[in-house]
């Protein structure tokens, strides 16, 4: 039987829906593992009973509800935010290597946040505003230098220039920060140590509307990826959508950087792996990346807090160690990139 457009498309869609279901199972498993495993391990059954509101008064429930649950929820949300920031920058710059970290967004955010912490004594809940200004500044500069020209070299070089610029400025601030330098250095390591319900609520309320907005933008991002002229001819207001995507990517990065520190490479690795398994249609790539990013960060955080327990490894450093070779591999094999 010959394959028609409709049958071929249906085939692709049903395959992708199956993958999304598998990823949701993976998310559930990593969520339960994240709560169950730790210095004191809690049986999975107890975890489930506790989450269902039973077993409220046990010792395990105290650990779960006060320590592990907020931490796992924040790591999952942060993973989803970083992965979607990557999807947004990759569609906007039409380049699979464009991620918030490589473009220097995290460095821009770190720089402005350092000023806010050292010189302005900014209150906890306002940190994302400063981080947002920093990311927006960085991404605007990268765009001014490299544009959306499909030119990987220009993009990466612009990212290097911006990252170097902002990390040097951050070093200068640290140099003159005195005792406050410690706060910043600890935060630059990146991690979820001591994450509380307060952090969860700020991250949750801040990121939820943005995550929903990104999902709503998915179809338009597909069109944007076809190039400005084709996208315009298909009815897309290219400049507005690009601006919106850049703002949303900056907001997502800002929320994560403010409370978890500059965690790199999630926005590169997660969308890349998801693109291999669900394709590049953003209507599937975005939910897939959100779920996989959430699972990924939850599992890496699990490693961070159990590898040398009771001490913790810095999450940002672990992901950096994993992410840098992956990035190098992608650069080296960029001809085989999906794009």
């Amino acid at each position: 039987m010959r394959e028609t457009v409709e049958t071929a498309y249906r085939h692709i869609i049903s395959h992708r829906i199956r993958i999304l279901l598998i990823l949701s199972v993976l998310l559930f498993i990593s969520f339960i593992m994240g709560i169950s495993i730790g210095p004191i391990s809690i049986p999975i059954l107890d975890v489930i009973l506790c989450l269902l509101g039973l077993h409220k008064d046990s010792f395990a429930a105290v650990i779960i509800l006060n320590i592990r649950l907020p931490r796992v929820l924040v790591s999952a949300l942060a993973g989803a935010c970083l992965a979607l920031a990557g999807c947004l920058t990759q569609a906007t710059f039409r380049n699979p290597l464009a991620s918030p970290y490589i473009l220097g967004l995290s460095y821009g955010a770190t720089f402005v946040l350092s000023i806010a912490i050292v010189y302005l004594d900014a209150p906890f809940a306002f940190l994302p505003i400063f981080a947002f200004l920093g990311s927006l500044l960085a991404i605007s500069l990268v765009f001014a230098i490299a544009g959306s020209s499909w030119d990987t070299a220009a993009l990466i070089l612009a990212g290097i220039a911006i990252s170097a610029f902002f990390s040097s400025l951050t070093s200068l601030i640290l140099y003159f920060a005195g005792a406050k330098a410690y706060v910043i250095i600890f935060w630059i390591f990146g991690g979820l140590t001591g994450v509380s319900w307060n952090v969860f609520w700020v991250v949750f309320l801040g990121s939820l509307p943005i995550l929903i907005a990104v999902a709503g933008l998915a179809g338009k991002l597909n069109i944007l990826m076809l190039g400005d002229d084709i996208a315009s001819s298909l009815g897309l207001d290219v400049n507005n959508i690009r601006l919106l995507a850049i703002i949303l990517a900056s907001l997502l990065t800002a929320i994560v950087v403010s409370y978890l520190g500059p965690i790199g490479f999630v926005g590169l690795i997660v969308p890349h792996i998801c693109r291999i398994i669900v394709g590049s249609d953003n209507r599937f790539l975005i939910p897939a990346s959100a779920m996989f990013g959430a699972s990924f960060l939850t599992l890496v955080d699990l490693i961070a807090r159990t590898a040398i327990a009771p001490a913790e490894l810095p999450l940002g450093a672990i992901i950096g160690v994993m992410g840098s070779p992956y990035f190098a591999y992608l650069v080296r094999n960029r001809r085989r990139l999906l794009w």
Partner: protein
Amino acid sequence: MVELSVENIVVDIDGNRILESISFSAKSGEIICVIGPNGSGKTTLLRTILGVIRPKAGDVRIGNRSIYSMSWKEKSAIFSYLPQDVPKVPFTVVELIIFGLNGVASHSSAVRCNSTRVESILDSLEMRHLISRSITTISGGERKLAYVSMALSRDVDAYLFDEPTAHLDYRHAVEVMNLLRVLARRGKIVIFATHDLTLAARYADKFVLLNHGKLVGVGGLDDVFRPKLLRSVYGIEFYIIRKNGSVSAVVPK
């Protein structure tokens, strides 16, 4: 009956005059071919008609409305555009076609297409075996055909194709031109730019000859395919070979 009129458009880019007072019109059912040497302004002209470049002076009208007063959504119901260089995107051929059909309205998995028409385009261009392949893994010519399929599948009033046959072998080039002719017969406006003067002469009803951004010839075959005019524009002599009264080939001497 739709009429597209290009009225005295002047385009400056980065302070350079790219197009100077270009005027012509196209009616439903007409195939207009834009010809001229490299850098003569063909692509700029098509992009100005599409509305992605705003002219410094002049206007492009569909009926009585200026296209520059329309939203992108309104324009998308009028124009289908094929760029000269088609991007390598990580979508499959079938996705590309579906995205083209749905445009910005693309939501869920709605397949809103005139399937018989799309299927016949795929068959004519021999693209069926490639529909599940990624655009990044097919050849340059096949990629061009994928975008041609997408642009042809859309049901609009005017088709703006920038070098639709570049990178294509003769057979596929002729197939693409035949499909454009079918669209014109169904009352659509077709405007295409090309360097292939033979295809231009054989398929177009009207010609717009540009040189250094100026309109140096507009009209039918006999108005534009004059040896002296072509020589002055291209700087070389041409053989204009006629068979049974119509031009069958235009080749450099």
